[in-house]
Each structure stands twice: as C-alpha cells, then as structure tokens.
C-alpha cells in the first residue's frame, strides 16, 4: 500500500484555503485528538441560517489539511440544515478520493462542521 494523494488533495494541502480563525465566529467546533493523530477546528459565521463565512485550522497529515481546506469551499454559502447533511464521503469525493486508511482518522471536516453548527444552535437557545 502506497500513499498516493490526488492532484486536488495536493493542491489544497500546499495552498490551503480559508485558514485561520474568524474573529466574530458564532459557531466553533473542534474534533479529533492530539493523541490519536489529527485535530480540526472549524469556525463559522452564520447569518439567517446560512454559512456566510467559514475557516479552519488543522493539525495532522496532508489528507487532514486538504479535507479541512476543501470543506470550507464546499460549505461556504450553504444553508445550515444542508451542511448538517454533509458526510465524510462527500468531502473525500470532492478531493478525488482519499487512501482508505486515511478515511477514518484524517477526514474530520464534516464532523467539525456539524459540531460547529451545533455549537451555534446551542448558543441560540441559551
């Protein structure tokens, strides 16, 4: 088994989009753990149930960084209920595929987006 990343993965890894924090983020989600390999944080600015702005930060391998980057492009402008339906497979598909053994540990973007949206809705209720 060899680690072969697609051109899209490499592009997003070498030139990640939307990296960093959003100062007035109203939904933040962090998933993964340092001890098991990868950590991803997604920052959302949600207005009228639409993701107006999104950024990410990732600690991990190329697959983890690329999936964070492409997820921000996919989710930007999405309605939050649609973003809640995003899956790991959706992200991997957009990247042109990920090595099988990278699917579990590194493909964290969908989970991080869901968590950030839940953070937003929880804050609304408070």
């Amino acid at each position: 088994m060899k680690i072969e990343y697609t051109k899209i993965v490499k592009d997003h890894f070498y030139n990640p989009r939307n990296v960093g924090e959003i100062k007035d983020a109203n939904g933040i989600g962090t998933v993964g753990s340092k001890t098991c390999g990868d950590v991803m944080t997604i920052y959302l600015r949600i207005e009228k149930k639409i993701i107006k702005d999104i950024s990410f930060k990732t600690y991990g391998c190329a697959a983890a960084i690329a999936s964070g980057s492409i997820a921000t492009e996919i989710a930007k402008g999405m309605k939050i209920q649609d973003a809640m339906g995003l899956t790991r497979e959706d992200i991997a598909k957009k990247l042109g595929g990920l090595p099988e053994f990278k699917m579990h540990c590194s493909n964290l973007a969908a989970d991080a987006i869901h968590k950030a949206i839940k953070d937003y809705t929880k804050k609304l209720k408070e």
Partner: protein
Amino acid sequence: MEKIYFDNGATTCIDNEVLEEMMPYYNKYYGNPSSLHSFGVDAANAIDISRMKIAKILNAKQDEIIFTSGGTESDNLALKGISYSFKEKINTKDNHIITSSIEHPAIIETCKYLQNQGYNVKYLPVDKYGLVKIDDLENAITKNTFLISIMYANNEIGTIEPIKDIGKIAKKYGIIFHTDAVQAVCKTPIDIKKLNIDLLSISSHKIYGPKGIGVLFVKNGIEVIPIIHGGGHEKNIRSGTLNTPGIVGIGKACELGQNRMNIDIPHIKKLRDKLINNLLKISDTYLNGHPTKRLVNNINFHVKNIDGESLLMMLDEKGIATSTGSACSSKKLYSSHVLKELGLNQNQLQSSLRLTLGRENSEEEILYASELIPKVVKKLRQISPI
C-alpha cells in the same frame, strides 16, 4: 536548486566507479562462475577478488564471506541458520535468542517466526537514547542461550550499540554473536576480531552499491544450516548461481567505502552537525537518539505539534527528500516501534522526521535545508489549532 536527497539510510545512489566496474560482467564476462571453461573462470576470478575486498574491510578471511540477495536475506540466514543448528533447544526453557526491541523488521519478524517454531526470544529494552544495557543483556543469558543478535547501529535513529561490550559478553558465555551492520558498514571501521563478532550482515545498496546483493560474514567453524537449497554454492550455505555483477559491485563499493572513509566521515559529520545545530534552533524541536553515539549521517528529530508526514510532503514539494521513521513504516500508520521503545509518546513519534546524509551532499544543500525547514514548520504551525 536541484533536488536534494537526504534519505541515504533508505538507499544510496550507485557510485559511478562501482557501476562501471560491474558493467562488463553483464555482457562480456557473463559466464556462470561454477563453469569450468574460460567464461566461468573469468567470472569466478572476479568473485574471488570481491570476496577478498569485503573480507579486508572486516578483517575477516575470504572464505568467511557468503553472498546473499541483500541485508534481509543475510539476517534471515543468520538467525534461522544458527537456530536450526540448535534444534535440540526447542523443548528447553528460558531464553534461546537474545535480541533488542529496536531491531530492523528483518530481525524482529524473523525472531517472531522462530518463536512460532518453538524458540524462546528475549527482546531487550533500550534506554531513552536507544542503547541496549549490558547488564540487561548479561541478566537475560541462560544456560540455553545460543545466539545474541544486536544491531550495530539503528536504521531510524542512528544510535550505535555497545558492540565491543556485547562481543565480550558473548565470548565470556560462549554464545554466538550476530550483528546487523547494514547501516554501519563504511560509516565506522569494523574489525570482527577485535569486536568478537561471529556473524555480520551487510547490504550493498546502503553503501553506494547495487540493489539485490548482500553479504553474511560467517566466522569459520560456525555451523549455519542453509535456508535456500540447491546446487550447494557458497560452501553449501547459500545455493543459487552467483550474481557476478552484483558481487563485483558490492566488492567495489566496500573498497571505495574503506578508501574514502577518512574523507567521507569528517565531511558528512560536519554537515550533519551543522544541520542538527540549525534544526534545534526551531522552538520545541528535539533530537531523537543519542547525541554522540550516533551514525555520522543520521538526523532524527521531532518538532512539537507538527505532523511528520505533512512536513515530509512540504519538503518534498520544495525538492528535499526525507523520511518519517523508516521507509518501510511510512506506508503504515505512524508505527515506528523504535521511537516507541525510546519512550516517545504518540504525538512525538508522529512528529518525527529522519534525514540521512550521504557523501554527495554539500554545504550549500545544508544551508538551503536550514532555511527552508523552519519556514515549513512555521507554515504548518499557522495552520494548526493546537
């Protein structure tokens, strides 16, 4: 800047002089060295010369050099060949074979196979630098111990084991001593007599020779049961028509390595120390392995909260070839058993990178790497949430 190769621990570029010397043995002196006609004699003579060159760098005798297909086969032949000659030990208790927990997979996996065959194997722990403790070794010896196999120098972290002391212990208890010297040959002088070594593995492609050829030194008087059967080549220890071009190549590579040691070692050491010094200036960066008891060409370090694979890929894009752990383990998920044995946690071993220099590397390349690596680390840290 042209591409920079810092992965000489994985394999080296074949030396032009070695390649030139090999070429005629493919299409001019192509006879089977076992044949009695002149074609065969030409090939057999070349093999004798190669055997002599290799024996010379080890201070061994010509007939103690057995050609194999590489380091892995040499290790397999040593461990299995010796164990099979001690078959009567199988139903006895206590440690039969003593090795270390940081050996190359060629040793570890062979030991596991032998355990399945009924042999008892003790894997000695190492200290935080990767050194085997002599007291641990002596304590592990039992009346049924017949083999000690400890690597000369570790492939991942470059730590050089106390081979002289291990040889003394082996001699004291009358136990056969094998060492996997694949990474050490031509990087440090090796005298099998002074070190009391009974068997020693060499790989050609780590010393600027061709791939697919290796050597097992077997001291005269030691019985090795063959694991490959056939025409009875190599004193009936390793059958198979001899790979004349490969053998000419490994002989030349050893000769060159020996002749150039007094130029190569100071050159590579100077470059290594400069690069280590510069890398350790990066905040939260630590050297893995021993600071001084270390192969001249090995750098292995971890950078806190940086993923080794990401670092490797970013450097590769900028033209610098490195490795995480060892070449075999980069395909598995973060599984360096060596770094684990040093006591590194998951995070630290995931953030480790190995650079292994060679005689072709230049000061200019070291300066380029010294500037680039901190920049890449900075970029990855900016992306990281931790």
